[in-house]
């Protein structure tokens, strides 16, 4: 079994690991780095529970092999917080709007929302739904997740205005 060395950043921290080439980013995060917030729901790139940002692109950790991590900057749910370590405005909005039930899909939705707002996403419901359409939720019927995203956008805009 040949191994490769890859260097990358996760949540602004440098890592160099030795692993097998096709090892999934999901397993590297959960097993090597003990970052358990990224979840596996389907393992085939369908459900979005393992969504992370790789160089700013919303990506699926379950279908990203180790070979594609060299030099990348990865952002996971553990890296989403305000400067003081408090939950970010997105996470707070999700809490306040009841966007969470079992919570298993939640990290993926937070990541997709983070990407959407970072790209200047608007409060338009159709656009919000488009941005989150790669994430399954089986509990909430999505309604309160959309509420959470809208609230997060309001808070983001308020913050920007200040």
């Amino acid at each position, binding site marked *: 079994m040949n191994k490769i060395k890859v260097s990358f950043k996760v949540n602004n921290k440098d890592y160099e690991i030795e692993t097998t*080439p096709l090892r999934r980013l999901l397993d590297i995060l959960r097993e090597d780095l003990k970052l358990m917030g990224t979840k596996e729901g389907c393992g085939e790139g369908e459900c979005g529970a393992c969504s992370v940002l790789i160089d700013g692109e919303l990506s699926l950790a379950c279908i990203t092999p180790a070979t594609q991590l060299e030099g990348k900057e990865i952002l996971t749910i553990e890296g989403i917080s305000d400067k003081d370590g408090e939950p970010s405005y997105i996470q707070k909005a999700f809490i306040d709007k*009841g966007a969470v039930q079992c919570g298993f899909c939640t990290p993926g939705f937070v990541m997709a929302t983070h990407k959407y707002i970072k790209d200047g996403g608007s409060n338009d419901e159709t656009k919000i739904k488009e941005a989150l359409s790669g994430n*399954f939720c089986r509990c909430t019927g999505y309604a309160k997740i*959309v509420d959470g995203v809208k609230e997060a956008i309001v808070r983001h805009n308020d913050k920007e205005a200040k």
Partner: protein
Amino acid sequence: MKKVVGTKVKRLDAYEKVTGKAIYGDDINLPKMLHAAVRHADIPAGKILKIDTTKAKNLKGVVSVLLHDDIPTVKKVGPIRRDHNVIVKDSVHFIGDVIAIVAAETLETARKAADLIEIEYEEEQGIFDPREALKPESKLIHPEYKSNLVVHYPLRKGNVEEAFEKAESSDDEIIFERDYKTPYQEHAAIEPEVVIAEPNHQVKGVDVYGSIQNPFTTRKVVSIFTDLKLNQVNIIGSTMGGSFGGKDDIINVMACRAVALSLATNRPVKLAYTREQAMKEGYKRHPYFLNYKLAVNKNGKIKAMKINIVADSGAYSSQSFFVTWRSVVQATGPYEIENVQTDIKAAYTNKPYTAAFRGFGSPQIIFAQESMMDELANELGLTPYEIRKINGFKQGSKTASGQALTEHKVSLMEVIDIALEKADYHNKLKEFEKYNKTSRRFKKGIGFSCSYRGSSLGAEGVDTTSAIVSVQADGSSYIMTGLNENGQGLRTTYAMVVAETLGCTMEDIQFLTSQTANIADGGPTVASRGTIAGGNAVKDACDKIKANIFSVIKETFNVTEMTELVWADNKITNPQTKQEINFADAVQMTLNEGINTSAYGWWKSPDVSWDKETGQGNAYFTYVYGCQVAETQVDTSTGKIDMLNMVAAHDLGRVINRTGAEGQVYGGVAQGIGYGLLENYSVQNGIVKSENFDEYLLPTIKDIPNIDAILVENPDKYGPYGAKSLGEPTLELGAAAINNSVKFALKKKYNANPLTLERVFLGKDLVKKVRQSEVVSKERCEVPNINSKSNSETVPEKTTDRVSDINITVAKTLKEALEIMSNKKHWIISGGTDVIVQLRKEKYHKELLDISQIKELKITNEIDGNIVIGSACTFSSLIDNELIQKHYPLFIDGISLIGSTQIRSRATIGGNLVNAAPCADSVPSLFVYDASVKIESTEGSKIVKLSDFILGSYKNILGENEILTQIIIPIPKDKKYYRYFFKLGRRNALNITRMSIATMMSFDDNNKIDEVYIMPGSVFAKFQRLTNLEEFLVGKEFTTDLIEKVIALLDEKLESEIGGRWSSPYKIPVFKNMLRDALLTILEEK
């Protein structure tokens, strides 16, 4: 005074969930923990002749391999009937049977070892239809039970035969009969099943962690299986990633397996399922076959109802005894009928077994009976509303089981009226009727369904539960309960009951994860009884504590009755004197007197009754009522249904947490939409076809419309603060409401769900007919064409989803990549969205070459009147590219609909073309734009037309040493092109294309058709433009007549090329419609 009950409260566990800190089952890793894997059967029915574990045992890192005979104790489990072998011995009952279990140092080793176990079978013809299973001549699936019948519940009220005789001879009455069929439904909690077992030396037993819905049930099953006493088994639940009834029996047998391995190795063992394994082995909602026969007075009054239902229990009896019992109680729906005769039977088949799923025997009967009520109304010239008003339960009505509804508010008509008003139902009926008369393609519908539902377990069994509330000296408190937080929000609800009852604040309450060792058996968290049962137990504990505190402080207040004081806002107040004491001080005073401020709460349901012979009795102590209204839009060209709106009105007794209650409604409605429209767990001849979420379609965020959640409150005397049930009723109504809505839109009736494209369009589903022998051999041996022409490698089915023995070489430059390819054949990977998924599922062991980092392949340029796109460009980058936007809007239309944001950011255009799937979304528009591709090897390069590159389904001309490097598209002439792209899929996102059409047209100065391109996707065996149609159109005046002529031409072509296919009865007429829609849209735009 601050009320807590009824307000919107944030979940107690939201913080850890949004931050990713919550610990779910798979997040638990214990020191020295082993990983387990199971070996599933390879056939749906037959004998096991031989099992050879040698190779598995010899694999480095394997610690234990256990077969049936290695289990020293009880081997079979089951809630009523112990017919479920935890590890099967010599016969296979369904494809998800487990034949061997393995523990190894790593997960990958364990799964690999499971794959290496060699099994010889003697395959037998399975039974796949429960009606077939019940025939006397049918083979017995479990011979020891002497029949394939699992259970039969009869219900007899009045005299049905007499009523039918009377109806037959009466001019005032009619006989009305209908058949319905409902499918399997998979829970699809986003967290797959996982358990961890660990030896507990202190009690000489085991501890079990994991995604466990009903810890006390799991404890009982493990105790039976191991012969350990209940006090030697401790179940410690983890945060649950959804359950919906799904993590009960399957988790119990998984727990037994993990425990067996743990006891055999004396180490902790984790058994985690992949999605495929969970889909294959996990139980589902029962498929039902239902026959309803009515005697009805022409004025609408139903005089008699005779119901025959056969439920598919699958390979095991599991919860069939309970699920079908609820069905027999509620099968008439909320209608008062004098004469009722119901028979429901569940039978074994060689298919995945069936058990609890939110709704529990009600969505099936409601789909049938509520669809039927609309059809009956139609038959009698009444409205759906009128028929329900005539027959619906009123205060004091008697149910089919003879129970008089006197102990609670019968709010059936109330919820119907509220829901219909909110939906503006009566106006919309007229409005849509009018709309449908003029709208050619789209028709709108509105329809509703209603139900009644017994709260909690009813006469199913002993209905009790437990809670502990412990108030500390500073006024803060702990709660523990016998019921489980499964994601539904039970902890928050209980904390609110404590805050309301004791008058303390939410912030001062902590909920402790219960362990079975720490609290009395609280029964299962099922039957929407979390609030009514557990809430009562919590309140009971609080009332006891309150009484203790009151016994001390009453002297201080100089009062004699509890009611004289108000407990709220962390204070206890006498409103008369304004005297007040802080709650914490009152607690301290009580403790100082040596009096306890902790208490055990207990709840036992009010009495219920049931006579098994007659099906008569007071089945449940209270009932809830609900009504849902569905607004739909049907595309008559394709049969695709879009949800426009849902209204859900539910009488839940009393709202505790408004946020949580609304969340339950939204979530249940979404699952009901899935059941009604999308979710079809497909099992053909015993083989599971829906293995993962690409084949089992869950609703995406774009499939769920606005939902109006209306919480109707009629407090119940038995509920905590009047609260009853909500979780399940929210799911059970949607499919029927949607069916009624679609029926209104199309004036057609459908007797089965989900309403797939084919069912809506043709009135039936199309299934590829294959014999079992063919299915089995094909499934096991044939490797689908994936990437290239070569298709020679076959290795046994694998469950290993980790593929560390595959080598990937990363090329930095194209030159390097070509050199690597010239030395040895490699499978090329770029975005990985196809390759990695296929590696996981299929049986390839190849060398991979990663070209995703080759810069030359990631650029897009304008060169000599062409746009040249590097093959490793992702779809996101192309969608954002201004050159592409400017020149190829039709291409943008097509690729914008690929997968999801996540997929588009990884998937590349080169991958899509090389994969050459018939449903590839980038291909049709590239054919229209006449794209070519550049193929390179160390020997040179060539440019070929895309149409010559793709040979057919999953076939291309790429040689073993070649790489597709560029896509070259001529820049279209600078003139006005009209374009139309349509992609047909079952959902609105994450779609696999069923068919698509890309069309582009231009007109000359005389308004004649100048250029025209018609390109179908996923229609023919090989991608091809419809050039004969194009040629026919060019130079002609564009009219509706011309369009019909060209459709006739298309018809000939379709009939001759795909006419014989199993799918053609759908594809041919629908693709004709798609072309008509394309051309008419352009005609209109022009």
